[in-house]
């Protein structure tokens, strides 16, 4: 197996996630795209861990999984709060901070 085949897969997943963050309006779908991005990063870490043969990449990937879980929890709580106040989770309608 090449190192690059995993890195290219991760890069492709990352770019699809970036497209999702840009293109989506629904806040829950934006959070899903962020999960795609975080998974791409994890794949890179594990591939490099196998390449270098030590456990640092695995440790970092575990920490990223934990951070991602916390991020989804807080993110969905925020989305829920926005929905309760505004009756919509369309990110285009949240423009109060526009200067």
């Amino acid at each position, binding site marked *: 197996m090449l190192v*690059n085949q995993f890195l290219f897969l991760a890069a492709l997943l990352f770019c699809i996630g970036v497209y999702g963050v840009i293109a989506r309006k629904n806040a829950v779908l934006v959070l899903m795209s962020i999960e*795609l991005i975080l998974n791409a990063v994890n794949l890179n870490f594990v591939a490099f861990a196998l390449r270098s043969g030590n456990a640092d990449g695995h440790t970092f990937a575990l920490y990223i999984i934990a951070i991602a879980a916390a991020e989804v929890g807080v993110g969905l709580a925020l989305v829920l709060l926005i929905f309760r106040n505004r009756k919509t989770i369309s990110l285009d309608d949240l423009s109060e901070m526009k200067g």
Partner: protein
Amino acid sequence: MVAQNIGFAIIAAIMIVGALRVVTTSNVVHAALWLVVVLAGAAAQYILLAAEFLAITQVLVYIGAVMVLFLFGTMLTRSRIGRDSGLNNSYAKLGIPVAVVLFAAMALALSKSFGTEELPTNGSLVSTQQISDQIFGPYLLPFWALSFVLLAAVIGAIVLARKD
């Protein structure tokens, strides 16, 4: 060696199709279910990369916990179950050139840096014991910080989502 490459190709194809469906489907619940496919594919790739502990954690945390959170979020925000045409921005097309240019830049950098370098086939495998030695050894301070982050996230989520 060949079998691993065939396995990689099949799983990668499934993951890419799933990821594309996540960002293009017009149904929030379908997007969540396609995301399960991508996350399970990532777990399979971890197995292929000899990271069995991470693969199990991926299944437990992502497919078990995070997906349930997503489905609850979909339910509680009363997104339309079924087709919904209002999921994309008006400037959604702008994302395609951004993603293509980003991928081109990364592909160029990767093929220049790693070329056709092979992964070691007889290298030392990382055991779960080594991972725990890392977490409770040199990476203990980040582990503490992480537990505080999780605690703050749990309390914050309750405070934010609570009806008062």
